[in-house]
């Protein structure tokens, strides 16, 4: 699963969700996804609640449902796998339309599908309402180690540049008639990849020199972020409360 994400999924809108501080959104997303994951699969009503809330959030964020649906296609390979399960699984079987399917298998498919799709929807909403740089700022507020944040910041900064360079290399090669169809023709690609790595490394050295030239002594400046205010945290608490509560009830009742 690599080719899907050449562009971040941010959608520029003005909504309450967009305005929320990133660290609050990260906490909310995590709370929701964990609740979804621990909910027993038989509690179909719980998943209905989750789905309803997520649809509501999508509206609140002014994101088009179609947008989310299209992005959900990225989960397709796993969907395909999940759909195979009732055919290859074990246990008691039942017959649907003349085909023998495993009951447990059907439940297994449901389990994977509903959690994967709901979880992915939450992720998609998060990325659609939060710019990448803000997500990183949110992480740093949540005490993710500074070295990790710094590396991530540089990665994001230079990602487009490097993809462009890689893209240009491919254009140059294709213009000279190179059309790789088999892995055996990987030599030029791999050599260009090696050359690109050397150039990237040397750029890293030059950036380091530029940092030194502006007085860098080892401490990266910490990104400046606004703290989430009370109403935002209250909203997060409510949202996570609903999800967690539903999950706990589902666990207890079953």
């Amino acid at each position, binding site marked *: 699963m690599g080719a*899907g*994400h050449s562009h971040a999924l941010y959608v520029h809108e003005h909504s309450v969700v967009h305005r929320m501080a990133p660290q609050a959104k990260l906490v909310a997303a995590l709370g929701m*996804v964990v609740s979804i994951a621990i909910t027993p699969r038989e509690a179909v009503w719980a998943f209905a609640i989750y789905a309803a809330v997520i649809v509501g959030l999508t509206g609140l964020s002014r994101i088009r449902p179609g947008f989310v649906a299209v992005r959900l296609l990225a989960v397709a390979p*796993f969907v395909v796998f999940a759909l195979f399960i009732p055919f290859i699984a074990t246990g008691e079987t039942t017959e649907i339309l003349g085909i023998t399917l495993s009951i447990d298998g059907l439940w297994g*498919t449901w389990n994977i599908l509903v959690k994967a799709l709901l979880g992915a929807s939450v992720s998609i909403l998060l990325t659609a309402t939060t710019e990448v740089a803000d997500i990183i700022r949110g992480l740093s507020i949540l005490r993710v180690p500074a070295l990790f944040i710094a590396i991530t910041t540089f990665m994001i900064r230079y990602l487009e540049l490097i993809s462009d360079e890689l893209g240009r290399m491919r254009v140059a090669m294709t213009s000279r008639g190179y059309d790789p169809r088999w892995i055996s023709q990987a*030599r030029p690609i791999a050599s260009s*990849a090696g050359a690109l790595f*050397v150039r990237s490394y040397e750029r*890293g050295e030059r950036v380091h020199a530029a940092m030194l030239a502006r007085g860098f002594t080892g401490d990266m400046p910490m990104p400046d972020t606004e703290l989430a205010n009370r109403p935002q945290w209250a909203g997060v608490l409510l949202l996570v409360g609903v999800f967690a509560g539903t999950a706990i009830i589902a666990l207890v009742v079953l």
Partner: protein
Amino acid sequence: MIIAMHAPDGFLEPVIAVVTGIISVVVIGFALRQSREQLKDKAIPLAGITAAFIFAAQMFNFPVAAGTTGHLLGGALAAILLGPSVGAIIVTTVVVVQALAFADGGLTALGYNVLNMAIVPAYGGYALFRLLRRVFPATAGGVVGATGIAAWASVVMAAVAFSIEWLFGASAPVAFDTVFGAMVGTHALIGIGEGIISALAVGAVLAARPDLVYGAQDLDRAQLSESKMGMRTFVIGGLLVAMVFAVVVSQFAVDNPDGLEKVAADTGFIASGEEHSLADSLFADYATAGISNEGFSLAVAGIVGTVVTLLVVYGLFIAVRESRSRDPASV
């Protein structure tokens, strides 16, 4: 066929998500400390830019066989170029950003996604690389050959790791041996692409800036100029690695399944005789149900899982040892 990397939520049971999450946090914390020491402040722009490079490289799919495409994982390559700990950090960054900013991979799946795609390939791949370098000639060609095989193996290791996680935390009733067979089978193919690309890329870097290859710091100019590697040595090395799993397992040949179960029982994997109580409590029912020869499968899981774990642990060990002996001024 499916590639279960960047797994979404719900694929494995929450218990596994938590356990692998804890393992990943601990190992990455260790890797961060190692990275800080090893490269000082130069690490930051360098590691970030290399992460961008791996991220970009992952965007290009290549065909491996009819209907299957794969893409670069990059863990072994990053480890051989920049060291195992830095390599692990870099791929972790890629995986985490893909999950948080590109919605690729579930948030609750980060624990095992990081473990399978970053930690296992970087440390396990690097450990195998070091072992191969001991038997391969000390030349640029030897480094390239070792890289190719280690990178191939790192992809297989990732598939094995996922399969073992399935054994303990399957969320659907698909037997372990089905998952194992499918995962390891397809990734043995995909790994070929990883191996070739990694080997050629390291070769290109060695030709231009040999000082940039962490895994080749011990070579002098003369050795670096020797870029061909004996075909025979390479093939033997490759087959040796590929056969480690197969040969060891085939000792417990199918024509002696009882013997296998006995071994499995002796080694404590299964309680012999009565209901497999250990299996019940530890392994996911789903994963063990329906396997025609449970003992065989679990023995395979045990042996293969142990080999991968040993390689990863050895990788961690080398990382510590190398950072102690490395002259700080030379990096």
